[in-house]
């Protein structure tokens, strides 16, 4: 079963974020700087559970830019949390889609890794999502996108043809995006 993806953004500081964003809309740079700094922390935690660690910081910056460019779509009469969560989820799906085209780079086995915590959490959440796919799709995505195998190596390991591995990755990632979006609609 897919994990719940509804984000409870701003649960603890929701009213502050509402107020700071409303102030930012009228040009209060200090409130905006404070807000973005707090959002960066929240977004790091959000993506740590949903993306491989190497993609987290790019996703955080992508969302901060989106918030800046689309801030006129925030209605100060409504809570800020759901607006933020919707953008974060949209960019998450976007990142998953980009996996279709981005080549996975195998990691150096001797690379220094200070903390495995986020990677383990991200991996477990991603594994739950993969469980919702057909086994050949999940296997192709796991090998090529998470473990850094080439498409040819994955083909040999799974017995699928090279083109079938590509098709399974494409369809599997599309299905993942649909699952996340469906969960968002259900919320």
């Amino acid at each position: 079963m897919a994990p719940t993806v509804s984000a409870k953004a701003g649960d603890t500081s929701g009213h502050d974020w509402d107020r700071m964003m409303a102030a930012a809309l009228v040009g209060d740079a200090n409130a905006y700087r404070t807000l973005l700094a707090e959002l960066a922390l929240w977004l790091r935690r959000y993506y740590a559970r949903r993306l491989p660690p190497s993609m987290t910081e790019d996703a955080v910056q992508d969302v901060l830019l989106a918030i800046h460019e689309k801030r006129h779509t925030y209605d100060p009469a409504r809570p800020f949390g759901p607006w933020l969560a919707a953008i974060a989820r949209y960019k998450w799906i976007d990142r998953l889609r980009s996996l279709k085209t981005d080549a996975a780079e195998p990691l150096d086995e001797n690379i220094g890794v200070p903390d495995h915590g986020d990677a383990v959490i991200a991996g477990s959440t991603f594994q739950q999502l993969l469980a919702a796919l057909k086994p050949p799709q999940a296997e192709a995505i796991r090998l090529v996108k998470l473990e850094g195998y080439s498409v040819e190596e994955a083909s040999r390991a799974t017995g699928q043809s090279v083109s079938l591995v590509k098709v399974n990755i494409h369809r599997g990632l599309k299905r993942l995006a649909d699952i996340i979006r469906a969960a968002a609609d259900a919320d």
Partner: protein
Amino acid sequence: MRTESLVDRLSQDLRPVRPRSIVREALLLLLLAVVEVAAFLGVGFMRPDMPVAMGAPSFWWKLTSMGLIAVMGAGVAILSADPVRSPRRGLRWILVCIVAILASGWLIDAAGSGIADLVRRLDWTQGLRCVWKMVVLSIPPAIALGVLIRRGAPTDRAGTALAAGLSCAAWGAFVFVFACPSDDPLYIAVWYTVGCAIVTILGRTTLIRLARW
């Protein structure tokens, strides 16, 4: 770039912005519709037998049908250009409306006799001209909705683009109703469906690219 630097850069020289207003955007689209209808009629495209046509149920059927889909599609498109709103429920209602419109068209069309009569009623040369005009008339709303969607932040790009495509298609057909020489429900059901399908597919394909952010 480090995230802290990005935060500094974004907050420097912050300018006030006017929050998006659904009412303002809806009024802009309404104004565009009025201008397009006025320009279309002003150029002299209005059918010459308009007073007679206004007495036929099928005239009002096609006018209200196209108007309803255009309004619903535009409404769903601009509402869903908001990160927290999904277009899916609105699209389901539009689908229900289209089915009801086609069904009511068949009810209005009580008569029917033979293939030759069918070919005569479909009048394909006139039908293709109608399709072409519908497509051209849907360009202004497509541009307007494209600008509004580009300015918004839709999170279901495919759904929003489809709603906008449907709206453009029905909008073009709505304006064309004032010039359309036929009130035959069969003709309308076939050629309006062809015209609307072309615009919907083109609109959905184009607008989904503009919806990316």
